[in-house]
């Protein structure tokens, strides 16, 4: 296992996230949901699966397709309300980021069952949050996956907040992994700021799924260090102290200490990589600015493969 590669992916995610926040402040994109601190979970998961495995994402994993080759500017275009951000899921093995909570979890089950029916051995990983765990679709998906013994890993990023709602008002259990037993599947909680712990747990669940052992639930325990999204003001509902405490535990610095201690990296190399990643994202920001805006005709584009003519709703009056 390539710890340096894992670290570089985390650094890339951090650079993406910080650049996105900047782009939002500069008005080059609209509201943006930062994932600052959740890089270990996302990067380790991408490393734990094969390229042919698919990842089903919520808005909070909007950079995961970038780890698989989507240009950052195309990912950001989503946040400036640009349909040119839409991509082909099969090209990156990533479903588009999903806004309605947990509704993509059944998709992961269907995709996984569908691939298996066609003789494939791929695995689906579905990301969701502690808040999303309360939605009916989360339950239905986990139950369906276990009845179908579908090769799916349900990966819950428990960052202890759903907008302003703390985990204690979201669920009356200490750990969401306790739900797994109710579906007859294994469940485990790991430190979401420890990339190696996440990697180990996800890899084990993925291998079990691939071998036909059915679905699992992995809960990555962490804390939403940033606001819910750039428009959010956490001071309305939580104190700074707890956040500050968790900020100290953030995964990248901690992992770098380990790698430097193990002699795999020098402090200079650390700085250089951050510099490089940040420069690459700055350049992507410029490419975003020069992406052509969408045109009115694109409003009906791709809604249907066989469009009706004329399109109901007086299209012509608009162009």
């Amino acid at each position: 296992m390539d710890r340096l590669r894992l670290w570089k992916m985390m650094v890339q995610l951090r650079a993406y996230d910080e650049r996105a926040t900047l782009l939002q402040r500069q008005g080059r994109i609209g509201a943006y949901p930062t994932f600052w601190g959740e890089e270990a979970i996302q990067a380790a998961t991408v490393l734990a699966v094969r390229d042919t495995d698919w990842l089903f994402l919520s808005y909070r994993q909007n950079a995961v397709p970038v780890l698989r080759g989507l240009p950052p500017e195309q990912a950001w275009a989503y946040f400036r309300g640009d349909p040119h951000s839409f991509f082909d899921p099969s090209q990156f093995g990533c479903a588009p980021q999903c806004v309605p909570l947990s509704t993509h979890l059944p998709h992961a089950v269907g995709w996984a069952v569908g691939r298996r029916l066609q003789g494939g051995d791929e695995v689906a990983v579905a990301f969701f949050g502690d808040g999303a765990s309360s939605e009916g679709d989360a339950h239905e998906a986990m139950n369906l996956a276990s009845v179908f013994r579908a090769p799916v890993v349900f990966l819950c990023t428990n960052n202890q907040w759903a907008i302003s709602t703390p985990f204690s008002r979201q669920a009356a259990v200490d750990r969401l992994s306790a739900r797994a037993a109710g579906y007859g599947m294994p469940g485990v909680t790991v430190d979401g700021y420890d990339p190696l712990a996440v990697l180990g747990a996800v890899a084990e669940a993925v291998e079990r799924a691939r071998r036909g052992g059915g679905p699992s639930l992995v809960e990555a325990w962490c804390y939403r260090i940033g606001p819910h999204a750039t428009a959010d003001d956490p001071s309305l509902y939580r104190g700074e102290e707890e956040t500050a405490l968790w900020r100290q535990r953030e995964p990248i610095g901690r992992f770098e200490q380990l790698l430097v201690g193990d002699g795999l990296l020098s402090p200079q190399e650390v700085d250089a990589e951050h510099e490089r990643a940040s420069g690459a994202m700055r350049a992507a920001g410029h490419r975003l600015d020069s992406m052509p805006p969408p045109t009115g005709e694109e409003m009906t584009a791709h809604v249907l493969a066989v469009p009706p003519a004329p399109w109901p709703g007086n299209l012509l009056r608009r162009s």
Partner: protein
Amino acid sequence: MCSPCHRRHGREICSGVRDSRPMTTSSARLDDADTVTLVQAVDAALEAELAADPRVVLLGEDIGRMGGVFRATAGLEARFGETRVIDTPACEAGFVGVAVGMCLAGLRPVVELQFDSFSYPAFEQIVCHLARYSWRTAGTAGMPAVLRVPYGGGTHAPELHSDSPEALFCHVPGLVVVTPSSPSDAYSMLRWAIRHPDPVIFMEPKRLYRSIRGTLLGDTDPEGLLRARVIRPGTGVTIISYGPSVPTCLEAADVLGEQGVSAEILDLRALWPLDEEAILASVRRTRRCVVVHEAARSCGIGAEVAAIVAQHAMFSLDGPVIRVAGLDVPFPMFMLEDLYLPNAGQIVVAVEEALR
């Protein structure tokens, strides 16, 4: 670039392409291929497509061994196995979501929602995903799924087993909504729907499942299935309807004929997109228009048809556009359903109003 579908996507198997293989009639397992009921036609269409295309899978509650509460999938699990005819747990949002995921994997799922009202729990999946996936993947991930929804009243069914939710789906952009009114249409339209690259809500008039018989025609013009059809030509008034109300309209036309009124009956078949051309052509010819359906009146299909007429053919009309529709009330307990459902007498009265 995917050569059959002319889209840019990297999928191994393209599920988004329109299927142009000929549709031939499968007469297997039909007692008499020439006169089958509507539910047998559905079964036969499913069988034919399961046999023709390994990507087709069926999903739903009790569709396997039992063959569905209406027996619309009778015999299919036995023939195709339980990996292609899949009994699901009772979770409509979940299994419609599974169908979305199966489309992503290159399959063509056909989902049975057990009754009209049990589409409501799947509403979010339908609106947010089934209807929007093609759009939000720039056309690379089409949703060639079919949702079969047995709908409507008149079967002495319990509460919430007689709803007509078709207009809800027509108001949701990104869905094609169709409904047959005869066994032959059911067969051809369902086979067409399964081959169609866009998501199709296939509304099955459950009152007609066993009440009418017809002939199965395999090779109808697939494009034509989205067009409305004049099922009885006439000159004095156009009666526009679809699905379960069509036989009632024919009954009314008989009565009107005796009264010397020649009624043209237009069966819409596709509810979204509506065949505006056919509607306007007929209305302009007869200069009178009545629309009939059993769904609630407000914001129903009748409203849309009337609005199209009011925009494009108002000055070709010699009478008001009259709707014969369900009351805006919950579908009543079944002792009252005959009073609720549009009947021939009401349609005749409506025509008289339109002729004033």
